[in-house]
């Protein structure tokens, strides 16, 4: 169903007027209330008076992830602290996290955009949504939850893991929409097979899959194995969480909820705004957020935008499924991982050298398998296997603590990992994404 026809099917020109109005309002507010933004705008010689339509957005400064970290916890808060009703932080990043603060109105807006996404997947208030995204500081769980509740769906807060129980809930409560990472969906399929559960006997009609990259092949496999229609969802903590954009039943691009999150594509080298259809770095501006709104946030995700006459009737701009990153961030089992984090962990372990290589592949059940090859420090080599196993377990535990995912550690001979003169080839990604 189309959850909010007025907003989702509005004439493009009309929407641009509204976006311009919201932008001016937001920028005026931030200039007055957030010293960080006032300084950035002053440095560029821009005032709220220069912003009169959405076309003026290019005059505004960008915001980077580093700046979000530097201003943690409340440096970018644009409302009184007591107006916050919920906070989230970004997942799996090293050191300082990034805050997302939500006022009551922000939660309503989050529920609204997420309800639209469920609608794009064919959802209606009579659906039963089994939400297998992680609940907690990660935005996935509660974001989907707010949207499903907003729509009026019976919402099962299953959270991730405990697969046998997932399948039992799915069967007993006749879940019709499953929300989780695509790799977890495939993992469920494996488990179901072992339990003798046939998805054709269940009631799933749609799956809302996101938080990690996936391919068309994976979509086909999920659709076949789970007997449902698979939809791609995109979101990020810095902007709101899940609900930024979603595929509709046309399965041809993700509609961006652009009345709340204004997207631009820029040349990552120069910052120049690129015309529609050109590939570049995705940038978002929160037009309506109250808690932690962001001006021109550089996502480092690479994609392109376009308008078309979508068969679903929505006029919301579309973005292509993510095509890559401008940095070296990896998404492993839904967790954001930077190679520098791995290096930091290894630096703290005296038995190894920070020479390493990560090999990423998908296992039989399409889950990311991460092998970390580490060189043994010569001084710690022992004639006993148990000593080397101890070192291996120590590294594995440290990685798990830092990255929140299981990493297979492979000890290799010193100096066997290729040294390069320039940028070391740290990552070998065999996944077909």
């Amino acid at each position: 169903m189309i959850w909010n026809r007025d907003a989702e099917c509005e004439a493009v020109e009309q929407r641009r007027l509204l976006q311009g109005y919201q932008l001016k309002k937001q920028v005026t507010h931030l200039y007055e209330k957030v010293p960080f933004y006032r300084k950035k705008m002053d440095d560029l010689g821009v005032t709220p008076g220069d912003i009169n339509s959405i076309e003026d957005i290019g005059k505004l400064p960008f915001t980077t992830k580093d700046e979000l970290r530097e201003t943690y916890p409340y440096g970018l808060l644009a409302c009184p602290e007591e107006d916050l009703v919920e906070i989230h932080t970004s997942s799996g990043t090293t050191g300082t996290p990034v805050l997302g603060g939500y006022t009551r109105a922000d939660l309503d807006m989050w529920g609204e955009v997420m309800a639209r996404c469920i609608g794009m997947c064919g959802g209606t208030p009579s659906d039963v949504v089994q939400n297998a995204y992680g609940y907690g500081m990660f935005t996935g769980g509660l974001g989907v939850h707010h949207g499903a509740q907003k729509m009026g769906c019976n919402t099962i807060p299953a959270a991730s893991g405990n697969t046998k129980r997932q399948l039992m809930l799915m069967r007993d409560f006749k879940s019709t929409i499953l929300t989780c990472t695509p790799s977890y969906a495939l993992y469920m399929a494996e488990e179901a097979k072992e339990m003798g559960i046939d998805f054709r006997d269940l009631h799933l009609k749609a799956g809302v899959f996101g938080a990690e990259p996936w391919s068309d092949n994976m979509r086909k496999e999920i659709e076949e194995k789970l007997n449902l229609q698979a939809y791609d969802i995109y979101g990020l903590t810095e902007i709101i969480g899940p609900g930024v954009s979603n595929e509709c039943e046309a399965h041809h691009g993700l509609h961006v909820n652009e009345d709340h999150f204004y997207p631009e594509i820029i040349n990552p080298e120069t910052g120049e705004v690129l015309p529609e259809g050109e590939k570049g770095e995705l940038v978002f501006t929160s037009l309506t957020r109250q808690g932690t709104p962001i001006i021109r946030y550089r996502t480092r995700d690479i994609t392109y935008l376009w308008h078309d006459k979508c068969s679903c009737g929505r006029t919301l701009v579309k973005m292509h499924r993510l095509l890559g990153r401008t940095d070296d961030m990896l998404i492993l089992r839904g967790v954001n991982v930077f190679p520098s984090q791995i290096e930091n962990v290894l630096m703290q372990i005296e038995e190894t050298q920070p020479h390493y290589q990560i090999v990423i592949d998908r296992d039989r059940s399409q889950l990311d398998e991460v092998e970390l090859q580490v060189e043994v420090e010569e001084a710690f080599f022992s004639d006993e296997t148990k000593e080397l196993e101890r070192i291996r377990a120590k590294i594995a535990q440290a990685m798990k603590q830092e990255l929140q995912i299981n990493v297979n550690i492979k000890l290799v001979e010193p100096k066997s990992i290729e040294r390069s003169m320039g940028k070391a080839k740290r990552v070998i990604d065999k996944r077909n994404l």
Partner: protein
Amino acid sequence: MKVKQLSVFIENTNGRLAQVTRVMGNAGVNMRAATIADTADFGILRIICEKPQEALLALKEAGFTARVTEVIGVKLKDEPGGLADIMELFEKNGVNIEYCYSTLMSDQGQAVVIFRVEDIDRGLKILGENGVDAIASFG
């Protein structure tokens, strides 16, 4: 007396063992015994040889991770229960064995068991007190 053992870290890749043994051969080192402790990803090759220090240098030069450690070598009586006697001696005296393997003295055709125990000095003392000789080297 302690015996010097050479241990080499071997990644589980094709041809690695052949390379180790070739390096030792080229260095003119005669091997007396060898055994591999293996895990899924790597192995540790343990070698008793002549001139272990020279072998160590040759291996390091060839890029291997290796070290020389000390173990106990015991000549066994060539009769049923010969090994059990030694094992019981260690057990009774609380000497923990990390690993052991057996080999032959080349000239005498006599069995020698190599023991790596937790506390090597204590292990040797127990053997000495019970009239068991530990060998110093392989002739």
